């Protein structure tokens, strides 16, 4: 007999906005008695929504890396930069700490998010009971670190606005910027649609997950 009891086992659900506990009375569209937010035992359709968003961001990550991110036109000619060539440029011009920051924010973070969320969702689907704590920590990391991949979008925005010297030098944003922005937004939505409580649910015994999914 375990001493620990989850809200669901106790027939309760907690409001995701204010934390109020309410009885899980079988109704489909319950609202929090305290703050009136919609109540769910678990986030609705968490696994399928997360999968859809992960797949979409993985697909868009390809054009985000292959297409040009920006085009620099100057007296010296025209130069097209992809995400990686921008990092290489920073590295070669001697500012390697910044090259590392940009590489981390635009390549490592989106990849880590896609892979980590895929692993989390797959393990939750298998009702795995292993490495619970590591997975809980990984989810927290993914949620925390995700916003930083927006970095390159802001860099492009400022470069386009600042380097606007007609006849001397101009910078234009490329199609990769749209794909990359979409990757950032979709991975953020994917992290939000994943319900970390599903990681711990298998401990509660053979309750069927599909019913609440």
């Amino acid at each position: 007999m375990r001493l620990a009891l989850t809200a669901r086992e106790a027939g309760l659900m907690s409001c995701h906005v204010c934390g109020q506990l309410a009885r899980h009375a079988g109704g489909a569209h319950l609202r929090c008695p305290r703050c009136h937010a919609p109540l769910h035992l678990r986030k609705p359709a968490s696994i399928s929504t997360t999968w859809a968003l992960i797949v979409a961001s993985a697909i868009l990550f390809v054009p985000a890396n292959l297409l040009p991110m920006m085009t620099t036109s100057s007296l010296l000619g025209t130069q097209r930069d992809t995400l990686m060539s921008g990092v290489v440029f920073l590295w070669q011009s001697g500012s390697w700490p910044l090259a590392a920051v940009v590489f981390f924010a635009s390549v490592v973070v989106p990849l880590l998010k896609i892979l980590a969320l895929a692993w989390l969702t797959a393990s939750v689907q298998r009702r795995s009971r292993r490495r619970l704590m590591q997975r809980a920590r990984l989810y927290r990391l993914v949620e925390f670190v995700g916003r930083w991949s927006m970095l390159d979008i802001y860099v492009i925005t400022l470069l386009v606005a600042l380097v606007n010297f007609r006849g001397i030098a101009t910078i234009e944003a490329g199609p990769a910027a749209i794909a990359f922005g979409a990757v950032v937004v979709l991975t953020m939505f994917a992290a939000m649609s994943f319900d970390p409580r599903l990681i711990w649910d298998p401990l509660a015994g053979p309750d069927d997950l599909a019913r609440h999914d």
Partner: protein
Amino acid sequence: MSLTLPAQTLACHECDLLQTEPALAPGQTARCVRCGAFLARNPPDSLDRTLALTLTAAILYVIANAWPLVGLEMQGRRVEVTLIGAVQALWSEGMTPVAALVFGTALLFPLLELAMILVVLIPLRLGRVSPRMAPFFRLVRSVQPWGMVEVFLLGMLVSLVKLSHMATVLLGPAFWAMAALILTVTLAGRAFDTRLLWQAPPAGAGA
């Protein structure tokens, strides 16, 4: 609706474990006993400090948006950009989805967050708690992850380093206002005890 549970029972929002919320001394933080998720904090003098910091942030937000952020000087010509100006440059170039994303994350959502926090906290400070505030606080919660001013500031530094070898880089007043804005918003977030919102109306003022 509510059950006969001890008043301080709560469920961890990350692993759903029921547990009693320990009495927190000022400055203490409660974490879930099973998964370690953040549950609650008891910051000293929460309401007044949060309100003061959020009002400061609102002023800094105005400065950060009204003045130029950064500028560039090249062969006697000077270009200065404001936040909205940078968004417009992208927009007019046909990069409308990206421009909209920058507008939302760097400008609109941080503004909404500040405004909604004030809408909720000022009546609370005046001792007028009404259930009608709840939707505003829900809006704060849904908008919060999308405000990314601190990432924007780092993006500004990266782009300035990229440009520093081809032109003279100038930092505008809004740059410093934005740096201070990030600091005050972070401190306001740390000072805020969200439990204040859902407790019974406070008899007197403060935490």
